[in-house]
């Protein structure tokens, strides 16, 4: 059932076996999995079906260094479906090494292994509408698999691994009808959590206080509670509730909000291939079941361990859009279309380009001199992206000059000094706003620097081309746009030791009997992988756990 808080009387009390706060990828997944379970499930969503400025503003806060992190109300959506309403759809699982404790990586690993998550990945993949859980080109395409660069040989980099793309699926649009039709799941929109009330022992949640921007106040009582509010909001909610625990819930050891990770991403260098243009394939192949897939260069686990560096992937990338000297009509068209491109994507497409009338004219000249290329591209984007339900994932432009750059995406190590804290300034509901102090370590720079060295070495050794870049610019490029937007990880990390973690292996907050966390906040490491697929897999795992403990009682 779906209803809005405005339909309920002021002071109303709702009850359920399980209360889920947040209807994004994690919250909706848990609710979906519990349809027909016999448990009564209540899902509380702050927003409505569309973005609303006043609700979105509840996410506003501050960042310590605006060059390093986007504003807190960007790259996440406070609405039914959460950030799945704007995500890019890239799916790839965490690697086994991401869960392991590595003696060279700070802050340890996870209390679980990839094998513990493995059973949930196929269904997570299906929920993300990313097709079969098959992440190598060999198993997906067989003999039709196309290498990224024919002739590339490396013992340290695999080019067989895939990323698969969701539609991208908005979990509310796609699965809301199932929740609405369910007998045991109730979704309440415009319901904001304003207080988590604990019993006198401070070990058990007794109820939640809800408020709406319209002034409604409600109470919710459940047997168990799940915070599924994303990596930033989860920390905020735990820190903001200090009635029983002076530092916030689950924060006796000052861990909540710390170890905040994103990913380290950037575009660097130039690589001019000596092979024929046809020997390079950097586009998407469509799997038999209709999923856009793309290969990437993946740093093998053995190489990571030998080099004592983090996880790392790279893709071939087109030249910088902002520089009209590329003389490419499509890239110039994208430059000119900047006002039409959503902020979340425009940042990395256009960078920090100041722009000028002269530059604008030069880009216009590129378009005018090769109009067929531009028109063809515009038609492709209209048909295959704008109008399609399964959208062409990104802009792929092949270089007639065989000239590319390298787009990398690397693990950020957990770092206790990278953290989310609270401001004194309250939002419209009286909740303190967040303050983000994202930081990276010298080891993170080393990961990217060393991985690029190996990649450049192996390109050269393969005799297919030469990757040229300034090693001194690695740190600049990996932080040019700051932390990779939208990947908010680790602020309530999973672990066995409450002194260095917030939730246990079952996602239960240490010291609390009936409070759980779902989402990327619990990730103990960040991997190279985009988080959503693993968020969904872990949510399914948590749903199974909740079902079991309910059955045991």
């Amino acid at each position: 059932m779906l209803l809005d808080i405005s339909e309920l009387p002021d002071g109303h009390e709702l009850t359920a076996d399980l209360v889920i706060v947040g209807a994004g990828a994690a919250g909706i997944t848990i609710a979906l999995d519990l349809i027909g379970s016999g448990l009564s499930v209540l899902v509380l969503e702050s927003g409505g079906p569309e973005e609303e400025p006043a609700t979105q503003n509840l996410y506003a806060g501050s960042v310590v260094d605006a060059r390093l992190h986007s504003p807190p109300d960007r790259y996440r959506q406070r609405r039914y479906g959460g950030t799945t309403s704007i995500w890019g759809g890239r799916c790839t699982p965490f690697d086994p090494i991401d869960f392991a404790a590595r003696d060279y990586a700070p802050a340890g690993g996870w209390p679980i292994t990839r094998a513990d998550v493995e059973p949930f990945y196929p269904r997570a993949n299906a929920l993300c509408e990313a097709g079969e859980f098959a992440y190598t080109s060999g198993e997906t395409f067989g003999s039709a698999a196309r290498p990224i660069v024919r002739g590339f040989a490396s013992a340290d980099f695999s080019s067989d691994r895939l990323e698969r793309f969701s539609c991208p699926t908005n979990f509310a649009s796609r699965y809301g009808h199932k929740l609405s039709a369910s007998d045991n799941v109730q979704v309440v929109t415009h319901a904001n959590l304003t207080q988590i009330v604990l019993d006198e022992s401070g070990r058990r949640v007794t109820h939640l206080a809800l408020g709406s921007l319209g002034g409604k106040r409600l109470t919710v009582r459940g047997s168990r509670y799940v915070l599924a509010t994303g990596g930033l909001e989860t920390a905020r909610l735990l820190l903001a509730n200090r009635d029983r625990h002076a530092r916030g819930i689950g924060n006796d050891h000052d861990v909540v909000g710390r170890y905040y990770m994103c990913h380290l991403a950037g575009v660097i260098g130039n690589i001019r291939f000596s092979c024929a243009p046809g020997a390079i394939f950097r586009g998407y192949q469509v799997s038999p079941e209709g999923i856009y897939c793309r290969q990437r260069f993946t740093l093998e686990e053995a190489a990571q361990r030998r080099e004592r560096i983090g996880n790392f992937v790279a893709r071939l990338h087109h030249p910088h859009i902002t520089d009209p000297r590329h003389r490419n009509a499509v890239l110039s068209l994208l430059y000119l279309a900047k006002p039409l491109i959503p902020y979340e994507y425009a940042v990395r497409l256009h960078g920090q380009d100041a722009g000028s009338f002269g530059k604008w004219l030069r880009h216009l000249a590129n378009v005018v001199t090769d109009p067929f290329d531009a028109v063809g591209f515009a038609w492709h984007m209209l048909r295959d992206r704008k109008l399609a339900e399964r959208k062409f994932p990104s802009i792929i432009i092949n270089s007639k000059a065989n000239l590319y750059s390298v787009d990398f995406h690397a693990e950020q190590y957990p770092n206790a000094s990278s953290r989310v804290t609270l401001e004194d300034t309250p939002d419209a509901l009286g909740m303190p706003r967040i303050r983000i102090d994202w930081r990276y370590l010298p080891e993170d720079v080393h990961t990217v620097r060393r991985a690029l060295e190996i990649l450049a070495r192996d390109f050269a050794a393969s005799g297919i081309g030469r990757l040229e870049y300034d090693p001194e610019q690695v740190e600049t490029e990996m932080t040019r746009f700051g932390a990779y937007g939208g990947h908010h990880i680790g602020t309530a990390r999973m672990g066995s030791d409450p002194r260095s973690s917030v939730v246990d292996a079952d996602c239960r907050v240490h010291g609390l009997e009936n409070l759980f966390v779902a989402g990327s906040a619990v990730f103990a490491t960040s991997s190279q992988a985009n988080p959503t697929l693993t968020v969904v897999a872990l949510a399914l795992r948590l749903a199974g756990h909740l079902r079991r403990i309910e059955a045991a009682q």
Partner: protein
Amino acid sequence: MTAGTLLVYGVGSPLGRRMLQMLGSGAQIRAVAADSLAPDALRAAVRDAQVVVNAAMGAPQVILGAAERLAEAMRGGPAERPLVHVSSMSVYGEATGVCDIASPAVGTLSAYAAAHVAAEAIARSFPQTVVLRPGVEYGPGCEAWSGRIARWLEARRIGDLGAGGDGYCNLVFIDDLVRTVLATAQAPASAGRIFNVAMRDPPTWNGYLIAYGVALGAIPVRRMARRRRAIETKLLAPPLKVAELTLGRVPFIGRQLPPAIPPSFLRLCAQEIRLDVRATEEALGLAWTPIAEGLRAAAASYRSKPLRG
């Protein structure tokens, strides 16, 4: 069952055809076509048969007509003559959730479903009747759910339907349905009972359409946007249906006509009804053909004869 004759009425249906194929020359059980028999001959055939099977499918009047003809022929015959009446899951109407045989029909019944309800009532006036309610019959010779869908998939007119394909596709492989008919005929205790017939863990319609598209080699299977689905059912379906009715029997042309995608098909794809087959499995001891195997057979059959007729 010991040696004897299985009298099959409705040999034009996928089940009837398949029964004749599988049992036509069998040493112990012989399936005999009954549709074209005159009333007296039909009465005599019923009297001589060990089991009577009503496998008639198609338009409402075909379904009702078959039930009435058989009932007429059976009246006055041996009271213990078993009748296996093959009905349809459509009798549950717009029901959702898990449906067992006691589940009531929900919503307004289509003419097709109403015909099945009426035909069941006629058949059940005989105490030895067993009613089978199959789900979605697929496999060799199943035009509605294999042949027609294969052509849609090949033409990329259907595929992954998104939220519109979340309904359960209660598949039953046609050979499994034949085996179910035989099992009921061999189990005296099944007389008077009703059985749902479908595989135990059915895929969603999306799962079926995607897996069948892959089995056919109609790849990549496309995502069908809501807009495209509306064009098919609201704009293209009416003229295609008219063309089918007017030109369908014209040599060469009729076989080439693209089949319409009716709105009822897309409604079924979204209907989250799941047949409860536990009682069927327990009573009849059946095992269902794995879907991969069934799809391979359906695809191979389609490849050997892709057009209707």
